[in-house]
């Protein structure tokens, strides 16, 4: 696309998009490190993850402020408007991703003693790898305005959801086997739920990449593959 006649407008749009990408990079790292702190029960790493969330929150604030200023000063339309709206929405999702990663890290600190991560957390680790892939793919799609990849991310969320369902069942079994494991399993269950939510945010971001590039809001509601039965009727 050619540049704006007013070049400072281009600079402002680039700056917003740059901050969104920076947020994306940070929240990706937070998720990766939160999971690795969980697997290794590394409480120092967990504390660093928690500290990083402040930076993500600050970036989101900056993205919003810049977007508001652009709307006020430039009255963007068409592609520009969609870029600004998408940046605001995506930064919102990334801020939530940061919160969810932070929540996993907080659990690492809260868990007392150690546990057999090979036995209990394998599923969570596997699930988080998938969510990380999704997050990375959608952030690349945002940077490259790649609607095909975004659509792909949107389709693949079912896999994360299916994994969540199977982890839920697995952890339930452990809890029934030995009530002393209920506490750790409950923590892991929440971690899995957080990862599942991160997958949902990746889907939201994918939808906004599609909207940004095409002007069409993906309308068809994807059916939700949460078969744990505990979330029925709960707003996501």
């Amino acid at each position, binding site marked *: *696309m*050619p*540049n*704006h*006649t*007013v070049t400072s*407008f281009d600079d402002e749009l680039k700056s917003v998009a740059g901050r969104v990408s920076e947020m994306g990079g940070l929240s990706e790292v937070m998720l990766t490190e939160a999971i690795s702190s969980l697997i290794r029960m590394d409480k120092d790493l967990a504390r660093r993850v928690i500290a990083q969330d402040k930076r993500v929150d600050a970036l989101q604030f900056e993205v919003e402020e810049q977007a508001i200023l652009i709307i006020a000063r430039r*009255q*963007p*339309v*068409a*592609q*520009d*408007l*969609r870029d600004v709206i998408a940046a605001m929405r995506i930064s919102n999702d990334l801020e939530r991703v940061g919160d969810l990663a932070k929540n996993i890290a907080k659990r690492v600190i809260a868990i007392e003693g150690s546990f057999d991560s090979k036995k209990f957390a394998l599923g969570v680790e596997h699930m988080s790898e998938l969510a990380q892939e999704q997050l990375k793919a959608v952030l690349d799609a945002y940077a490259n305005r790649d609607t095909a990849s975004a659509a792909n991310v949107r389709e693949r969320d079912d896999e994360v959801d299916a994994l969540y369902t199977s982890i839920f069942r697995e952890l339930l079994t452990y809890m029934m086997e030995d009530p002393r494991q209920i506490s750790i399993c409950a923590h892991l269950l929440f971690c899995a739920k957080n990862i599942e939510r991160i997958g949902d945010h990746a889907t939201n971001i994918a939808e906004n990449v599609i909207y940004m590039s*095409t*002007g*069409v809001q993906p309308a068809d509601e994807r059916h939700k593959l949460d078969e744990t039965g505990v979330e029925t009727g709960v707003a996501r």
Partner: protein
Amino acid sequence: MNEMPVVDAEAGTLLPKISAKKVQVFYGETHAIKDVDLNIADRTVTAFIGPSGCGKSTFLRCLNRMNDTIDICRVEGDIRIDGEDIYDPKVDPVQLRAKVGMVFQKPNPFPKSIYDNIAYGPRIHGLSRSKADLDEIVANSLQKAGLYEEVKDRLDEPGTGLSGGQQQRLCIARAIAVSPEVILMDEPCSALDPIATAKIEELIDELRENYTIVIVTHSMQQAARVSQRTAFFHLGNLVEEGETKEIFTNPTDRRTQDYITGRFG
């Protein structure tokens, strides 16, 4: 005025108020409008946008044959209002311009009283039988133009003594006085401050209930605010015409996108 919109009995769809087919305009050797097809809906505000010299004003002026007054200007193609060919030799351009009123960029009141500015048209078109009739037309027109309250006590003062925004509303009242069906506006707010502009835009929104309005504007935001449909002209071509909300969020043509987002070199 105020009849039911014309409906195509067979298709059951609303016929356009104005339909233009294969319209070409030449100024001497210059090909100013190239093969424009455009339907304009009744009781709708249609905005014409595009860079200077793109032909939007030229096309607007075809709709009430204002281009007739320019010797070297030649209009080809077919323009119909309510299905009637307005370039038919039997059509009286003066009658046509009463039906298709026009408001210009610079407010141009006659050097007469406020009252006479409005009364002039109805008098020459013989629209009033008595002084009381005429008084009513004047008051009505000023009311519709949102000016009555401001000028009702000084109708005998010169129209040129009003502020720019008031003068523009006076010109709108003058156009309304001869019961037009279509009102053409050629950048009606470009000489006005934001408050006067807002008043005109509010007025346009009210007038839409009873008139077909076509407005040429250089302000993209104004087109986005006041119109339901937008037509984008470039180099004499009609590039894109569609719902205003579509044009400003997701235009189809790259040139439209570049223009409305400020990317034209």
